[in-house]
């Protein structure tokens, strides 16, 4: 316990700051994450994030593994969005070994990663409402839609969450006609669901009161602290890696980047809703244009049956994608052997936590929980 601090409003009574640990086992911390808080009354004075409970040294495992062997491990980074994790790993190795991806495979990749974005955003808004106290009605509405998309993932890749679907130079299976029809069905019914969801939430007075002007992140701090993803855009910074880097074939699609004005929790919530609408636009275009053809690069054909023999040339590469949680990057140094010399994951949830203390100080404990919910973390990725 620290020495006395005066309560702000009375000024007369001497009080002590109180140390509170939220987590590592707590429903509001989204996993095994611990917030080491100091409270003055109910106001947060300081907050230190403590992590590492789920640490399994993913990087070390990958350095002792042949290249394709890390692909199923990347699924387990951000277990909500295994497709985008696969995507960035495939992109990095393709950049390293200079592999051209066939057009159809590129389209399949874009479709899958946009579906992943829908899955993530729809459930994270649900969980945010859970943290606010709207217990499980929004999150179950969200999971109903998520279920349809996971069914598609299962049909396409064989697993609902740990997809392990992307390969260097393409994808594992082709997209069947039925799967395309199912995706079209999901895309056509999703806007209706979003309208209903927004009717339920967006103008709800309780949500507005709890979220507006809470946890404001200024654009200057956001840029300096390397915040990415919906959180950065909610602060009004126009930076979407799909637009900036034009990786894969994102330059072919027309979509807009939704921006927030204030940078509070409400903006983060609303930017995610708007991003889903933009994702649907991309999906519609991609489903219309998807060509027939190969799904695997010719250069990689010998390694389909023998992934151990794949040796990228000497060198290094860093690729990044706009994952639903922010910028997901992988850095690989190759020494010409079947195992990477260095493998590093730049995890968005991990780095977005840097400013958690700045956002929470001065707010109440209940708000700290909501702010953490709006940062959108997954502990599999934070701890790696």
């Amino acid at each position, binding site marked *: 316990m620290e020495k006395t601090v005066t309560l702000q409003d009375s000024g007369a009574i001497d009080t002590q700051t109180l140390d509170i640990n939220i987590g590592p086992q707590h429903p509001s911390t989204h996993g095994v994450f611990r917030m080491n808080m100091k409270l003055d009354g109910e106001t947060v004075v300081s907050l230190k994030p403590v992590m590492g409970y789920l640490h399994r040294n993913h990087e070390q495992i990958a350095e002792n593994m*042949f290249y394709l062997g890390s692909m199923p491990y990347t699924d387990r980074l951000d277990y909500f969005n295994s497709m985008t994790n696969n995507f960035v790993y495939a992109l990095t190795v393709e950049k390293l070994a200079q592999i051209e991806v066939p057009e159809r495979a590129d389209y399949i990749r874009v479709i899958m990663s946009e579906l992943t974005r829908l899955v993530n955003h729809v459930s994270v808004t649900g969980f945010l409402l859970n943290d606010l106290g709207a217990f499980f009605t929004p999150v179950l509405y969200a999971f109903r839609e998520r*279920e349809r998309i996971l069914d598609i993932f299962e049909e*396409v*890749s*064989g697993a609902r969450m*740990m997809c392990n679907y992307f390969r260097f130079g393409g994808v594992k299976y082709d997209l069947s006609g039925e799967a395309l029809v199912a995706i079209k069905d999901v895309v056509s019914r999703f806007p209706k669901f979003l309208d209903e969801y927004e009717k339920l939430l967006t103008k709800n007075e309780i949500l507005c009161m709890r979220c507006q002007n809470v946890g404001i992140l200024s654009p200057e701090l956001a840029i300096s602290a390397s915040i990415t993803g919906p959180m950065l855009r909610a602060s009004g910074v126009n930076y979407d890696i799909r637009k900036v880097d034009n990786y894969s074939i994102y330059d072919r699609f027309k979509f807009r980047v939704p921006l927030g004005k204030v940078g509070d929790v409400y903006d983060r919530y609303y930017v995610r809703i708007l991003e889903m609408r933009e994702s649907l636009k991309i999906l519609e275009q991609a489903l219309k244009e998807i060509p027939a053809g190969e799904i695997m690069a010719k250069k990689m054909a010998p390694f389909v049956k*023998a*992934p151990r023999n794949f040796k990228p040339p000497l060198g290094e590469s860093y690729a990044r994608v706009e994952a639903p949680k922010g910028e997901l990057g992988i850095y690989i140094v190759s020494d010409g052997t079947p195992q990477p010399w260095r493998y590093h994951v730049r995890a968005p949830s991990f780095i977005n936590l840097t400013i958690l203390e700045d956002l929470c100080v001065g707010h109440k404990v209940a708000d700290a929980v909501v702010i953490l919910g709006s940062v959108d973390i997954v502990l599999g990725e934070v701890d790696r």
Partner: protein
Amino acid sequence: MFYGSGVLRGMLVTLKNMIQSYFCKPEDGGLFTSQYPEKRLPEKERFRNFPFLIYDKEPENLRCVACDICAKECPPKCIYIIRDFDTDGKPLKKPKIFDIDLTVCMNCGICEEACPFDAIYMDHEFEISGRERQGSLLYHKDDLLKSNEHFHKIRPTDAAAIDTRRQEDEAKKQAVKKEPPKPPSTAS
């Protein structure tokens, strides 16, 4: 709009959903969950869980030749193979021990991709449990063996494609064998 209208409209949405859940089909907003042990959803063909070893007709006639490729490719290294030997000590083309630790397996399907003999495939069975922490989920060869008919049942299109390919390969082999062997050269 008056203050509180947002909450009221939200309430209307939940009311609508509740009423729908009684009268509509699941696709149109009806009750979406199914009561699992009684009612099962149809399995997707590509669904993968744990690997199994495939045999043709007789369990002795398994396709695995103990080449050890899957054990090497397996990312978490959950496959353990020892080759069988006959009484003279000559290596046989079948495994003596083939163990998979299901507690370590992470259902990635790389063994199935890498196998050059179509011997190992991913099963649909997911209701697996054991009473002990160690050992009871270590599956041995006998637990893993399943027939080709089982494979046809769970993954009809893949199984049919693989069967025709295997038959073609067999036919090619037969054609090569039928050619008379060249006489040994008699030159001194």
